[in-house]
């Protein structure tokens, strides 16, 4: 009898389905964003130019800061090249009831500040803003 050789799968303590369901239910109870009740949306520009300029670190700093601040009603998404590659990394912040604001030449520290002041505080960070407005996102 031949024993079928199997690729060793790395064993690690996995979250059980129940654990995940629990986390999910807890999240759902406090969640409202995708139902349109959210406070706003932050779009990180992830074209080739944005990525080469450091958009990934901006995205991760943004996610980290939002989750540290326990913010759950902000949608985070990406868009392509906005045609202004020289000022990448860029992000657009849209808060409900306010015009969208485009921030340029970002660093992880800047986006953390933008989360604190603009997304949470409602005050636009003038020093980092390019203009008010938005391009099409996908």
């Amino acid at each position, binding site marked *: 009898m031949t024993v079928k050789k199997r690729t060793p799968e790395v064993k690690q303590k996995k979250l059980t389905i129940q654990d995940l369901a629990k986390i999910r239910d807890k999240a759902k109870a406090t969640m409202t964003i995708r139902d349109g009740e959210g406070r706003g949306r932050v779009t990180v520009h992830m074209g080739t130019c944005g990525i080469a300029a450091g958009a990934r670190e901006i995205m991760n700093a943004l996610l980290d800061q*939002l989750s540290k601040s326990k913010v759950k009603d902000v949608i985070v998404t990406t868009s392509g090249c906005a045609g202004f590659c020289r000022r990448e990394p860029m992000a657009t912040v849209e808060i409900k009831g306010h015009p969208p604001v485009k921030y340029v030449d970002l660093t992880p520290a800047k986006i953390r500040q933008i989360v604190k002041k603009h997304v949470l505080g409602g005050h636009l960070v003038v020093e980092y803003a390019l203009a008010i407005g938005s391009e099409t996102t996908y």
Partner: protein
Amino acid sequence: MMEDLSLHILDIVENAVAADATRITVTINENERRNLLTVRISDNGRGMSKKDARRALDPFFTTKGKRTGLGLPLLAQAAEHCGGGAVLTTVPNQGTKVAARFRYRHIDRPPLTAMVATITALVFGHPEIDFRYGHRVNGLVFRFASREFLGDPRSTPCLCPSIFRAAKKNLQTGLKKIGRT
């Protein structure tokens, strides 16, 4: 220019997102014995016509109404510089596959580096998409599926702090166990 392969991967996957894919698979295979590193990215997006596919590796071809389209050409160039190459297979309305091969020990081969950052940026930037990530290092395998953390996409995918941390931790420990950080 992209500093490492994980950035190229992020870029190509963003293409798949833009092509309206709902399921995207990233597979990395590192095989030192065969001196080979392969990256495969496949999606079920809208694909390309034969005519577009032929020109997709041309840096001055794009479908997005601008002058350049550098994502795929940069990846292909990096692979070719390392004694490998990139292959694009696509079927309209069914999806696209990109496979890039690198000589593992080639002096010019970019390092992979931050796969955790690439995957978290993708998964939490597009929680509605079903991401699967498989990484094999000399026979050891790590697998990750965004659905395990985000559940059914129709039931409010979210940026929930605990889910974000759980997914990140899972990626970090999983990659560490196969010898990648």
